[in-house]
């Protein structure tokens, strides 16, 4: 990471235990601002668990997480949103009975502190977050579906709205968990350009199994295995790295471990 600005996210020694089992066993991660940073790895690598600790969905058992100069380790997920961290989920997680527009408004509203007047006044005027919501509807090509319940959207539309919910918080860093999961080819291409375009205004941390996307649009790739970081570097380097190859192909009878 060269340049005058340091990493926007710096995780050191992150450990997450579930009982005796350590899903993440001491991970260091540095993410440079305005880059697309992918996290990949074979089965059981701990990628999603690491994600959860970085976004605050789960509390880390040990280690520190520094975001934009602030120590966010002890902050809950709803508190990290205000510091500029937003995420999408691998299994679509929206507000299904509410309209698409309302979903986005709620996500945009979430970064503001709730004031007393909010318990009295409806979401009109400045509380409608109109500008942010319209902007995202346009960008995600969801304008036509703005007023229908989010639960009735097609899968591809729902996955786009997932990303939209994260964007609505106008975050500094967006964490996307398998954004293209279960999508058809056309939707995947659209999502790929969408993510690539996010780089300009945000930092993107990505978990993906679609290697085409990972290798094409990432600036940095971190490979995890069995709860630890195996290798990290630009896509071209990772592609041909022997250790990565061994981790994925498991060349000895050891159930995947190198």
């Amino acid at each position, binding site marked *: 990471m060269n340049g005058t600005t340091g990493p926007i996210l710096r995780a050191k020694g992150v450990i997450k235990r579930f009982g005796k089992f350590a899903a993440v066993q001491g991970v260091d991660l540095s993410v440079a601002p305005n880059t697309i940073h992918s996290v990949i790895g074979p089965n059981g690598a701990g990628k999603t668990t690491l994600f959860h600790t970085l976004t605050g969905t789960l509390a880390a058992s040990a280690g520190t997480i520094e975001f934009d100069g602030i120590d966010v380790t002890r902050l809950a997920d709803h508190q990290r949103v205000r510091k500029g961290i937003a995420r999408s989920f691998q299994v679509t997680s929206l507000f299904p*009975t509410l309209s698409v527009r309302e979903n986005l408004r709620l996500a945009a*509203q979430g970064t503001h502190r709730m004031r007393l007047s909010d318990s009295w006044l409806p979401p009109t005027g400045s509380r409608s977050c109109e500008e942010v919501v319209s902007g995202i509807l346009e960008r995600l090509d969801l304008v036509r579906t703005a007023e229908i319940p989010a639960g009735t959207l097609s899968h591809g539309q729902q996955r786009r709205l997932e990303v939209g919910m994260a964007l609505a918080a106008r975050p500094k860093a967006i964490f996307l968990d398998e954004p293209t999961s279960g999508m058809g080819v056309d939707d995947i291409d659209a999502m790929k350009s969408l993510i690539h375009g996010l780089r300009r205004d945000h930092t993107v941390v990505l978990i993906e199994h679609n290697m085409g996307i990972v290798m094409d649009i990432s600036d940095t790739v971190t490979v995890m295995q069995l709860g630890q970081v195996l290798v990290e570097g630009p896509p071209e380097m990772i592609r041909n790295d022997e250790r990565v190859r061994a981790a994925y192909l498991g060349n000895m009878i050891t159930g995947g471990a190198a």
Partner: protein
Amino acid sequence: MHTLKENYQLVLAFATVLAMPLFMQSGLLAAEVLIFAMAVLGCNLLLGFTGLLSFGQGIFFGMGSYALGIMLVKLNMPLILVLPLTILVGVVSAVFVGWFSIRQRSVYFVLLTLAFAQMFYFLAYTMTDLTGGDNGLLGVPRPPLSVFGIELLPLESSWQFYSFVATCFLLVFWFLQRITTSVFGRTLLAIRDNEIRAGAVGYDVRGFKLAVFAISGGVTALAGGLLAMMAGIAPLSSIEYHTSEMILVMTIIGGTSNLFASLLGAGFYVLSADWLSSIWPRWLLLLGVLLMLISLYMQQGLWGVLEKLWHAVHRRRRREPAISATESEQQS
């Protein structure tokens, strides 16, 4: 900036409140409908709007009953002071119960509210000096509502009392309508739909649940206090498990999709109980059947049934000629 369409619920409530004296003979029975409607509103705020199933509403109802009774009978406080304090008692009890229950996930939350209900019942049963134990707190008066000695509204006669209860009810209804349509209220809906997502976009879910619990407690306590005034007694049954159950049943029967449905549910239950129990002592059997039907076929409750009828009538009207193609397109 509120149009008639947005306020139609309040209008319906207002109309119902005005209509009841015309159709009913007993002012106290009419008051009872509105009193329980308030309790159901408190329960619906939790269940329909936030997705919280509370088996502890009886706690706040009973606490309100006792608080008002104690303040009027033993402390001789003026009514104008007693009412807001009764609400406060409800709020404080709800915050206490909520603080522990809300930490837990759905099933355990429900069980905890049930556990607290039993605990409060036991306390009420044993603290006989305060509550009268099994006998209840007797001699709860219905003093006139007065400010600085000036009598505003006597509550002696049943219809005078009804108009007072009706005013309280409409104020509560209006208050809850403002809250549920506000930014805060819309966030409750989000929490109901997907709690995890709500947290992930920045809402302190526990804080919201505690706040709505407090509001619910206050409203329910007010209802309990008014019942004590109506009956002249703050009975032990107000804080019994059965009351919690009854309030929940009324909520589900009426429907959880909006506020007016709560009035429907309370009205149906109270009036059926009054009318049927004199005819058929096993009337609760009918209620059981109704609950089954609602669970299986009419999950939107009585409100849902009325809504469907309304749409069916409207559709028949529209089958008449001279509708344009565009008009019928807009229908769906």
